[in-house]
Structures are given as C-alpha cells and as structure tokens.
C-alpha cells in the first residue's frame, strides 16, 4: 500500500495527455450526445398527448416545454423524460392547456371556404375535425383556426363531426357549439336543406341540444308562363311531391284547353303549407289571361298579365285571394288586353266554332253547374262575342244518349242557360242570346263509344 502512495506521486505526468484527451472528447461528443438525448426524449413522449412540445438539450440537461391536457398527463410526461437514460436534469417548463369556459367551437362557411374556429379538446380531435371537413366539403378550402383547450363537454367529437356534415349542406352560415348548446344560422344550399339539417340534428349525441336553429332555405319557387305566341304553358320550379306534380299538370291540361303544357317541374321538399291549395286556383286565374305569368315564391304569389275584358280582370283580382290558405299573400297585376277589332257575323261564327272545336265547356257530372276549369275558354268566347256586338247568338246545349231523353233534354237546356247566364254576368246584353237545349237529338259522333259520347256532350254557339 505504501508503494502505491509512492508511485501515485509520480502519476501526474499522464494527466497532461489526459486533459488533452478530455478536451477532444468534450469537443467531439457534446453535440452527438445532445442530439441522441433529444431523440430519446422525443421517443419517450411518443405515446403522450401533448401540444407545442419543445425539447432542447444542453449538455445532459433537457429543457422540456409543452402544453398538457391534464395534470396527470403533464406529470407523466415530465417523468418519462426524466427516466430517459443519460438525462441528468429536466427543466420543466410544461403547463396545462388553458381551460375554455364556456367551451366554444364553431364552423363558419362563406362562399370560398369553411373556417373551423374556437376550441378543440385534443390535437387528435382537431385533426379529425379538419379531415372530416375536407371529406365532407370536397374542394372547398378548409381553414383551421382552432385552439386547443380543456373543458370540452363529453362526446364533443361526435357532436362536432355531425355538425361538420351539416355545414356541407349550407351555402353560407355558421354552426356553433357552446358547452352543449348548438346554434345554427345561415342559408341552406338547396331546397329541402333546412329539413335535411333538422333531420341530421336529431342524431346529436346525448347531452347536446339545439339552442337556436336559424337556417333559412332558398325561396321555394314555382312559375307558370302562358305564352300566346308559342301557345304554350311553361311550368318551372318545384312542387312538393310527385302526386301534387301529376295533379297540377292534369289540372293545367284541363284549364289550358288551347295551350301545350311544357312541364319542367321538379319535386322537392320545403314547400310552404297549402302549396297545392294556393297554386291550383292561381293556375285557374292564369288560364283566364291572354298572356301572363304566375310566380310563387314561398308563401307569396304574384300573378301578372292581360285579361280578355274588364269584368274578367275585376273577377280575377277579387276572386283569387278568397280561397287562399292562411299565411299566403297574393299580388295581382292584371291589366286588360286592348279590344280586338270588330268582325262580322260570319267571322264571329268561325271564331266560335274554332274555339269550341279545341275545347269543350265542362260541367260538373250530371249537373248544369259550369266546371271552374272552363273559365279560360268562356273568357275567350266572351271576348269573341264582344267583337260582334250586332250578332244574335244561339247557345245550344247537347248531351250524349245515356239516360232518359227527358232528363237529357232538361239538362241540355239548363246547361245552355248556365252558359248564357255566365255571359250575361260578364256584361253582355241578355237580349243577344237565346239558350236552347237539344238533348241527345243531334249527335255529332257515335254514342257507342266513350270518346263519341264525350264529343256529343257539348255547347255550341250559333250566330243567327
């Protein structure tokens, strides 16, 4: 042992190369050691949920800054870095993510982009929401302005994902979650979008409720245009369903005896209540115009055009609004077509025959009451009668051969009289007309077929 002390007093010369060795080792190893420790620390934090993680290594000391989402998570993260072999000290600069109260998240859509804002609870849910927005919105730009905050209500992710699906149905607008209340505002992309969103919202996770739903839908538009030059009735826009669609087109076919019905209607949800009840009579009014347009927008109905004569204009203005469903508004802009030039009796007869050749005056089955669908035809007949003021006209009623002769005779007389009354009510002098019934005595077609019978049931105007 004594020898060792003796020898050790002569060990000092080796310390000079040792110091040099130390210097070189320190110079060449510091950066690799720091890089290695940083990589090991990052790996140790791989399974820990943190935000804004920053790791810098100074020698063997790790400066560790991060935002954690719970106190436990924060402590575990620091412990994980402390446990990395080779780490001497951890400068703990971690903190908890701020708590949002109330916890507000929003998705706002304008023409070009969707902006996700407010708070998201975790980085994973944040990226999940952005991804879902990309998937739901296709090529629309998605701007992520979400912050991370604590304090999200349970099942927040499911609620937000559902709402992202709904924002795809908006043209513009904003959806907000505040704690567990959902507010929506804006304009739906399509007709029925409002209803589709309302249906979607029924699947909101438990605990969430809709505080305000101010989604508006684009106006529900229906248009009918009567074109006297092309002799067409063009229907465009929307109808509530196929049943209403078929009924409207059939009714238009009856009312517009002369015009070809061009049907460009599409079925869509979102119609105001009472749509069919309002549009039906309005189409009837349009059929009484020589040219005109009917525009229905939500609950507002606008009819414009030219009536054939003054009394018709007054009747249309007064009559239409009466049968309307509640809440509907009616605006009529009816002028009167300039009176056509007078014609002589022969031309007058030709015009009557021409009109009645294209359409029959209809009556309710087995009765003498005129079907309202024939109003358009009657207006044309009245206009013609006004053009030959000196002519006397016989209104002749005919029936088919079904039923008893006496009944048919009486019915034909009553129907001819009903037409005459209609004309007189429109302002024509009663002494120009005589109403005559012929029963089934003057058929113009076979009474053996339904088609023939239909031809035989008729009113004729004969100029005397």
């Amino acid at each position, binding site marked *: 042992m004594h020898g060792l002390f003796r020898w050790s007093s*002569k060990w000092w010369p*080796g*310390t000079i190369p040792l110091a040099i060795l130390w210097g070189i080792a320190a110079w060449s190893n510091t950066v690799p050691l720091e890089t290695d420790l940083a990589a090991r620390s990052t790996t140790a934090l791989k399974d820990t949920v943190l935000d804004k993680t920053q790791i810098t290594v100074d*020698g063997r000391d790790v400066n560790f800054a991060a935002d954690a989402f719970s106190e436990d998570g924060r402590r575990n993260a620091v412990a994980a870095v402390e446990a990395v072999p080779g780490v001497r000290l951890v400068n703990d600069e971690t903190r908890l993510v701020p708590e949002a109260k109330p916890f507000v998240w929003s998705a706002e859509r304008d023409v070009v982009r969707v902006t996700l804002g407010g708070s998201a609870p975790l980085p994973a849910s944040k990226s999940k929401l952005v991804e879902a927005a990309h998937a739901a919105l296709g090529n629309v730009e998605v701007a992520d302005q979400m912050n991370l905050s604590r304090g999200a209500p349970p099942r927040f992710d499911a609620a937000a994902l559902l709402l992202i699906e709904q924002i795809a149905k908006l043209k513009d607008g904003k959806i907000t979650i505040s704690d567990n209340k959902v507010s929506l505002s804006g304009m739906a992309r399509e007709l029925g979008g409002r209803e589709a969103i309302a249906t979607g919202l029924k699947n909101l996770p438990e605990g969430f409720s809709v505080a305000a739903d101010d989604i508006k839908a684009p106006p529900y538009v229906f248009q009918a245009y009567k074109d006297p030059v092309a002799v067409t009735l063009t229907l465009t826009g929307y109808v509530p369903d196929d049943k209403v669609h078929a009924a409207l087109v059939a009714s238009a076919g009856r009312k517009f005896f002369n015009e070809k019905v061009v049907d460009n209607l599409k079925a869509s949800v979102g119609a105001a209540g009472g749509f069919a009840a309002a549009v039906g009579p309005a189409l009837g009014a349009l059929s009484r115009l020589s040219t005109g347009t009917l525009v229905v927008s939500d609950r507002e109905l606008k009819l414009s055009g030219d009536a054939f004569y003054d009394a018709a204009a007054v009747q249309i203005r007064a009559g239409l609004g009466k049968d309307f469903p509640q809440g509907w508004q009616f605006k009529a802009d009816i002028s009167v077509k300039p009176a056509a030039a007078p014609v002589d009796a022969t031309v007058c007869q030709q015009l009557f025959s021409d009109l009645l050749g294209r359409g029959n005056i209809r009556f309710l089955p087995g009765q003498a009451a005129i079907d309202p669908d024939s109003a358009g035809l009657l207006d044309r007949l009245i206009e013609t009668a006004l053009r030959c003021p000196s002519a006397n006209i016989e209104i002749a009623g005919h029936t088919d051969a079904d039923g008893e002769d006496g009944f048919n005779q009486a019915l034909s007389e009553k129907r001819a009289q009903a037409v005459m009354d209609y004309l007189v009510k429109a302002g024509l002098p009663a002494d120009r007309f005589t109403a005559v019934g012929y029963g089934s005595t003057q058929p113009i077609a076979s009474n053996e077929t339904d088609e023939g019978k239909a031809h035989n049931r008729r009113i004729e105007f004969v100029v005397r």
Partner: protein
Amino acid sequence: MSYLAMFHWGWLLGALLLGFVAGWISVVQRGRSVSKVTARWLALLVAALLAAALARVIPGRPGYWLDLGLMLFALYLVGCTIGSWLRHWAVSRPTSAA
C-alpha cells in the same frame, strides 16, 4: 451512468490505457514527485469537483464536461493503479526469486 459509459467507451478505454502507461512508468521513474501537501490539495479539489458533479450544481454543457472529465480521471486512476501494480510485480519477481 451505464449510458454514459456506453456512449464514451472509446474515450474511457483511452483514459484507462493512458493511466496504465503512466502507472507502469511511475514505478521506475526518478523524476519529480508531487509533494504531500500538493497531493492533499489536489485530492481536495477532486473531491470538491466530485461533490459538485453529484449535486448537479453546474448546469448545461459545463456540467456534462465535468462529468466526462471525472469519469476519464477515474478510469485514468484505475489504469495507473493496475499499471503500477503490474510493473512492481514484474520488477520485484526476479529479485525475490534470486
């Protein structure tokens, strides 16, 4: 510690060999010795540095360099001890045999 040993094994081996050579030579060397007083001061210095390293009071890179230096120095001393013993054994054996 094992991490540091693994990371710097080459340098530590170098220090051990250097110590072995220094110890080997020291047995027969006639040069200047360190006085007892100086040796005590040096021991005190090393103890202080060791204490500083264990207490982790020196931050950042200097702290790491100190750790590295002390490890190299420890290995150097081990090398010296082995070298000295072996040389002493090699030198004294023929004498004792004779």
